[in-house]
């Protein structure tokens, strides 16, 4: 006789109540395949937890974004934001798609060089550029985006010893109707600092003011803010031309586009509120097209969007380690995925999908990670189908920031596997081992013997 499928027995108290923020649980679809490869097989072959990146999704997403802008504006260039995900394989996919590199440190700059990006296609952002960084970037004819006056004077010093003028832009922060204003980066528009910086660059005669840059925030759900930002940069460019006869060659609108992840504290699901590439593109390009640029020459529009290009392509696969009942009777589920791997769980309510078809019964649980540390919570109060030890799950939309902000804490970081467009898998970062983690350590003689 065929035995029946066993589901964990379960009883829950019925909440009697009036409308509140949390409602009837809804069916959660299983996610058994990623790009047609069975999740079970991937875990069997490469272990759990496991990061999986879909090359197909990256290329499709990139092309969709490019199309949204290029159909609205004649001169568009994307630059891959290294900090979002700087695994070499990932960066190279974007470079193959013709994206430049956008880096924010000497380390990221080295990575871009190693990936074969030409110096004049590297945008160097951020508040931390050493003198030697500035020198190298100047020699390589990279686009240096100046963050503060101290850096501006450093760069003028560097430029004095050069036989060509370094190409620079200033980063501008401004009021776009979105708060808080990211005024810690760059020069403020409203208080005149940005204009002041432009004047000093031009007067120095050592630097070539090529562009204007802004990055108004992160996870921006308002496309209107981009419209305002693009208008203000456009206005600065026109003013620079009339005052100094300086032609601004490009406007870099930065990144910050939202993805469909749901921010903690948001009422609606991210996939209902996140604007599409078309909506962002419409706001930005229509604002630029409204500006009366000198001689009707439109500047190059540079975009540094990172998150929106890579989030959907990343998956984190994991396994249930245990079920527990907490002192108040609440359920707890312990996963082998923790905040060490999923840094973004600090600000998103990540969507989790079971791998197999599940029961219709839901229970409210908390998803804890495996770390021996209280803050290791992946999802607070999630309503989820009953899980048993050994059940596998997939966390979607994790391609951005996790594979850079992850921590080597308590345990090794897992394998990262790329599924290429033909459906073949490649380990693009192998799981750490003791040697990898301790490679930089050394033990003084007097501690050799214990």
């Amino acid at each position, binding site marked *: 006789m065929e035995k029946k499928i066993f589901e964990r027995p379960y009883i829950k108290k*019925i*909440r*009697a*109540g*009036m*409308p*509140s*923020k*949390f*409602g*009837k*649980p*809804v*069916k959660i679809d299983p996610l058994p395949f990623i790009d047609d490869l069975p999740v079970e097989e991937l875990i069997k072959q490469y272990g759990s937890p496991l990061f999986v990146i879909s090359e197909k999704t990256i290329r499709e997403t990139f092309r969709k974004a490019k199309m949204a802008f290029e159909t609205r504006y004649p001169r568009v260039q994307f630059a891959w934001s290294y900090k979002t995900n700087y695994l070499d394989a990932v960066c190279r996919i974007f470079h193959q798609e013709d994206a430049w590199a956008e880096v924010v440190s000497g380390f990221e700059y080295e990575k871009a060089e190693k990936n074969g990006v030409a110096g004049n296609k590297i945008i160097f952002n951020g508040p931390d550029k050493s003198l030697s960084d500035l020198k190298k970037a100047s020699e390589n004819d990279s686009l240096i985006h100046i963050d503060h006056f101290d850096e501006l004077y450093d760069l003028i010093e560097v430029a004095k010893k050069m036989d060509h003028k370094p190409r620079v832009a200033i980063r501008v922060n401004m009021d776009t109707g979105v*708060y*808080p204003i990211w005024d810690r980066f760059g020069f403020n528009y409203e208080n005149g600092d940005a204009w002041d910086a432009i004047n000093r660059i031009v007067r120095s005669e050592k630097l070539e003011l090529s562009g204007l840059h802004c990055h108004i925030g992160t996870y921006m759900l308002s496309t209107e803010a981009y419209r305002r930002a693009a208008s203000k940069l456009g206005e600065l460019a026109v003013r620079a031309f009339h005052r100094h006869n300086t032609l601004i060659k490009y406007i870099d609108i930065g990144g910050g586009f939202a993805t469909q992840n749901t921010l903690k*504290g*948001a*009422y*609606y*699901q991210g*996939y*209902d509120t996140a604007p599409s590439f078309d909506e962002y593109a419409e706001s930005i390009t229509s604002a630029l097209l409204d500006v009366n640029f000198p001689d009707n020459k439109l500047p190059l529009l540079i975009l540094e969007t990172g998150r929106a290009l890579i989030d959907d392509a990343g998956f984190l696969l994991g396994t249930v380690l245990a079920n527990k009942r907490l002192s108040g009777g609440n359920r707890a589920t312990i996963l082998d995925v923790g905040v060490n791997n999923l840094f973004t769980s600090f600000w998103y309510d990540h969507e989790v999908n079971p791998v197999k078809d599940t029961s219709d019964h839901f229970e409210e649980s908390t998803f804890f990670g495996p770390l021996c540390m209280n803050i290791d919570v992946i999802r607070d109060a999630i309503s989820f189908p009953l899980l048993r030890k050994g059940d596998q799950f997939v966390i979607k939309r994790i391609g951005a920031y996790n594979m850079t902000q992850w921590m080597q804490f308590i345990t090794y970081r897992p394998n990262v596997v790329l599924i290429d467009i033909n459906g073949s898998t490649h380990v693009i970062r192998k799981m750490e081992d003791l040697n990898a983690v301790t490679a930089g350590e050394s033990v003084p003689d007097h501690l050799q013997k214990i």
Partner: protein
Amino acid sequence: MNPLKLTIAVTGLNNTDNPGPGIPVIRGIRDSGTIQPRIIGLAYENLEPGIYMHDMVDKTYTVPYPSSGTGNLMERIREIHEKEHIDVLIPNFDAELFTFMKGIEELNRLNIKTFIPTLQQYEERHKANLPEYGKKYGVNVPDSFTVASPGDLKKIRDHFDFPVVVKGKFYDAYIARSQEQAEIYFKKISAKWGVPIIIQEFVRGTEVNVVALGDGNGGTVAAVPMRKLYITDAGKAWSGISLDDTSMLDLTYHIIRSTKWKGGMELELIRTSDNKLYVIEINPRIPAWVYLAVGAGQNIPEALVRLAMGIPVQPMKTYKTGIMFIRYSYDMITEVKEFEKLTINGEL
């Protein structure tokens, strides 16, 4: 004329001391005489009184919250539609409207009719956008700004003197008389409705309200002004009276004409001591006190259903003034069996 047989789905069955508009809307429809309705209740929680009011609601189904995503809610509506063949759907919560607007194409495809504002109309009247709205349409509004974190509350002092009004994205409004109170209300509201929170200048005066219905082409089909006579601790009207006030009607006509508002709306206004009207909020749906309008001679729920069905409605220009509503509570008796059916099967 034969009455129109229609299946009408209605949300907002929470007819408690802080009532949703569902039951008053249903009463209006049932009173109409021209519509013979089958009322389908859509409930979010198992104790919404309307579920158990079988003389008002013929059948109730539970539905997932809008916060669970448009796809999930629409899937449930599809399921219900297969059984019930819904003709008209009347959403009664602010928080739902966004979701139904997102799902409007699907509703059209299913041939479920609605009469709700467009996404643009909905967004621009949003509390957070009110200052711009005032400028654009030439109406007086209090100044306001939005905050996303408690730290931002420090900015209150740069903008206003206390008291200020602390408002949630959809619901809840508190008058904060100090920084500390503002912080408390911020936490209270954001825990329930998320961020952003709106900080609004406090306008002194008498609060008056209008319930109205716009035809989507700039015409006002119905409008009845009212003053609350007594307000509960939760800030809800306990009693109110219809007013003869041309300036309020003119303002309503102006707003509906210039925005081409489609659907029900509630204007919350403050009349200041120098007799100016300030718009403090525009709710994009019928309010819970709509039955006062029915009582005063303008059956707004009936008119809304007819408009949704594409039947022209003559603008209602008159109503009786001095009509009052007084809310009361009532202990309905039911059995745990009923509760069981709804909770386990999701329908009753």
